[in-house]
């Protein structure tokens, strides 16, 4: 089941009353959406507020989402509209959306609009998290690091990674999982237990 189908499954569950399913989508897209909205909004705290508002709006609008587009495209449009309305309400100028191609927007930032997304409190945490991820990555056995890099950075499918690394697909799947778990283990003390922080 591809990435888009997974989103679709989660959306359908949310549309049938499963809020947890929506929270899984939030976990997946919260940072990407925040990044997108940072192109419009300067202040880090405001970005988070608007991002949250966008998610709420998306949740309310779920019944009208039919799956004609990918979920994230639909979510990003809601995000951009929320941000623009916010700017207008604050009396600030909102950039015209013709300047942006949604497909470009989700991954490639226009340099002049890049803003620091972090509050001072976030800055420290983001350094610690990034540090931990990077440190653990470097300490991983080579084949685990390669596998997760080809997946997360190059966006390659398991089949292609298997070809490049000269191993079976099952090995690729296992290596990526082991790399993720190794890093996640180091991160967990920082993120708090599931009970208080994440769910």
């Amino acid at each position: 089941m591809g990435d888009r189908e997974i989103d679709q499954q989660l959306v359908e569950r949310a549309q049938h009353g499963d809020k947890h399913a929506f929270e899984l989508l939030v976990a997946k897209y919260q940072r990407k959406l925040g990044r997108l909205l940072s192109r419009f909004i300067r202040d880090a705290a405001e970005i988070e507020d608007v991002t949250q508002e966008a998610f709420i709006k998306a949740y309310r609008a779920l019944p009208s989402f039919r799956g004609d587009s990918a979920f994230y495209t639909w979510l990003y449009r809601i995000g951009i509209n929320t941000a623009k309305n916010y700017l207008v309400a604050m009396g600030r100028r909102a950039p015209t959306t013709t300047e942006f191609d949604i497909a470009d927007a989700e991954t490639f930032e226009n340099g002049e609009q890049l803003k620091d997304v972090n509050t001072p409190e976030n800055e420290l945490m983001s350094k610690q998290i990034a540090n931990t991820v990077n440190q653990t990555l470097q300490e991983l056995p080579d084949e685990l690091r390669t596998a997760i890099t080809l997946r997360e950075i190059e966006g390659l499918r398991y089949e292609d990674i298997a070809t490049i690394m000269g191993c079976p697909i099952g090995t690729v799947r296992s290596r990526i999982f082991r790399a993720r778990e190794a890093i996640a283990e180091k991160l967990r003390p920082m993120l708090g237990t599931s009970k208080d922080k994440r769910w």
Partner: protein
Amino acid sequence: MKHDISALMDGELEQDAAETAIARLKQQEELRDAWFDYHLIGDVMRQTGIVSADFGERLRGKLAMEPVVLAPRRPLLQKTKIAALSVAASLAAVAVVAWVVLQNNTDKAKDNLAATQQSNAAALASLPRYPLNSNVNEYLLAHQEFSPSTTMQGVAPYVRTVSDGAPETNR
């Protein structure tokens, strides 16, 4: 199982296994934690930026106050057949790509967490993500001469040269 969550988020689980995994996600907190953690790791690697620690909690609070949405019943999506995943033939003499952390051979100790000079720079602290060989400049200079980008843009593509010695930092 957590390893299923890993494959699930990459879109690499077959239909039935995927549906099972999604169902389990609802039931088991440990699996939801894994989903959260693994997505965070990917975003950190790509330097997408992070949100506050309590972002999820705050949003959950707001969502809790929302009336549950119920979409009108619609026919289920077509279940697409997943092609059988082929196993790549093992290739002789394909080197397993290994990462090497290269020595920084300048005398100065670079503070890898130093914020960049640009106030508009991207969120995360600059860390050497994939340290580049200190000789890269020489290769790049030699390469640029023959790259069509030089023919079309003159000396502009030379901006790709890194500064000497220090590992490349992403800003």
